[in-house]
């Protein structure tokens, strides 16, 4: 198994020790003051509304569709050293080649891989195990830059688009997925780095923001949904298509954490927590970001 866990070991074990009570204490502390939620609605000032209008206009013709089309081509094409297509070899959890609704049911546990994987990690696994690509080659440049969009990004966009307007349904009944969810929750609460930040420092309470950006509280279903909606997303700044895996890595960067290894356990677990918390809510497909 080359898709290994580096950060996961460090964070998971460290987080397992002191934190558990912390998240609950925080949740309890949050309950009493409803006034904190009330001014939030008023904060939707003119600028925010204008921004939403602009975003709605952009969503109407999202360049993500271009990557979706490319991803479909890649999904169906015979590629790699073994010359097989993902459509005829890759099981995203609903059967070989089934993409409809697969994205909203990840992360899930894949017995053939012996791991909990989000959609992107699973596609990488298929590319490596079924098509014979080299994992290190994929992991060398896993995310899009201004001059290059990796195949995996287009593939994820295609798969995600096949779950448009479907309800998120991470199979949390599966004990392996539940375990991943709990570890993901601890990763979100794990404080470290030069700023002693955790994900929850910014995303663990209502009504926080950075500059003009209101920050979602990922411990609530609606808040978690805001962390799921729109990924994979087309970022207008620079015009690049970026995946949910990239977003998680970027959160770690902003916390001044070391970068998690691409397609690692840590990111899969964190995504299990995030997407699992939003379970039951509707996913709108690939989005567009500022």
């Amino acid at each position, binding site marked *: 198994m080359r898709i290994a866990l580096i950060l996961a070991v460090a964070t998971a074990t460290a987080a397992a020790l002191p934190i558990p009570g912390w998240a609950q204490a925080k949740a309890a502390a949050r309950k009493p003051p409803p006034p904190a939620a009330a001014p939030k609605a008023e904060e939707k000032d003119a600028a925010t509304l204008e921004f939403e209008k602009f975003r709605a206009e952009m969503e109407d013709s999202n360049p993500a569709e271009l990557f979706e089309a490319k991803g479909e081509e890649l999904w169906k094409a015979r590629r790699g050293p073994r010359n097989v297509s993902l459509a005829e070899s890759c099981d995203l959890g609903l059967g070989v080649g089934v993409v409809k609704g697969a994205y909203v049911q990840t992360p899930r546990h894949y017995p053939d891989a012996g791991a909990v994987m989000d959609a992107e990690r699973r596609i990488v696994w298929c590319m490596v195990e079924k098509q014979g690509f080299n994992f290190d080659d994929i992991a060398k440049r896993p995310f899009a830059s201004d*001059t290059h969009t990796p195949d995996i990004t287009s593939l994820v966009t295609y798969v995600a688009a096949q779950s448009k307007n479907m309800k998120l349904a991470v199979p949390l009944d599966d004990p392996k997925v539940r375990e991943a969810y709990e570890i993901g929750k601890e990763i979100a609460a794990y404080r470290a780095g030069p700023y002693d930040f955790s994900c929850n420092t910014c995303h663990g309470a209502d009504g926080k923001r950075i500059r003009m950006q209101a920050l979602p509280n990922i411990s609530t279903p609606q808040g978690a949904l805001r962390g799921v909606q729109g990924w994979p997303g087309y970022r207008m700044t620079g015009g690049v298509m970026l995946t949910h895996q990239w977003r998680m890595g970027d959160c770690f960067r902003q916390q001044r954490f070391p970068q998690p290894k691409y397609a690692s356990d840590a990111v899969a677990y964190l995504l299990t927590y995030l997407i699992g918390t939003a379970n039951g809510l509707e996913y709108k497909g690939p989005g567009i970001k500022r």
Partner: protein
Amino acid sequence: MADPMKIRAQMKGDVAEVRVLMAHAMETGQRKDNAGNLVPAHFIQQVTVEVGGKLVIQGQTGTSVSRNPVFAFKVKGAKAGDKVVVNWVDNKGDKRTDEAAIAA
């Protein structure tokens, strides 16, 4: 070869609403890469649109247009089923033509 465009065309009353999404880098020639070298200009120079066999738009575009641009416009006198043919040519001579039928 250039990637395909996405064309959506729909009748709204007696006017056809057409939206075209093009895949193009649209490099201005002003940007530098990580090594500090100028990225050569690469942009769509000419766009033509035909609706129902009639030329309705012949446009020149430049470097102020964004990457992966979207163009939207309304056409009078078109009807459902008419073919919309969009064609672009960039400054390196790359070109692409795609078509779609106007939906009712």
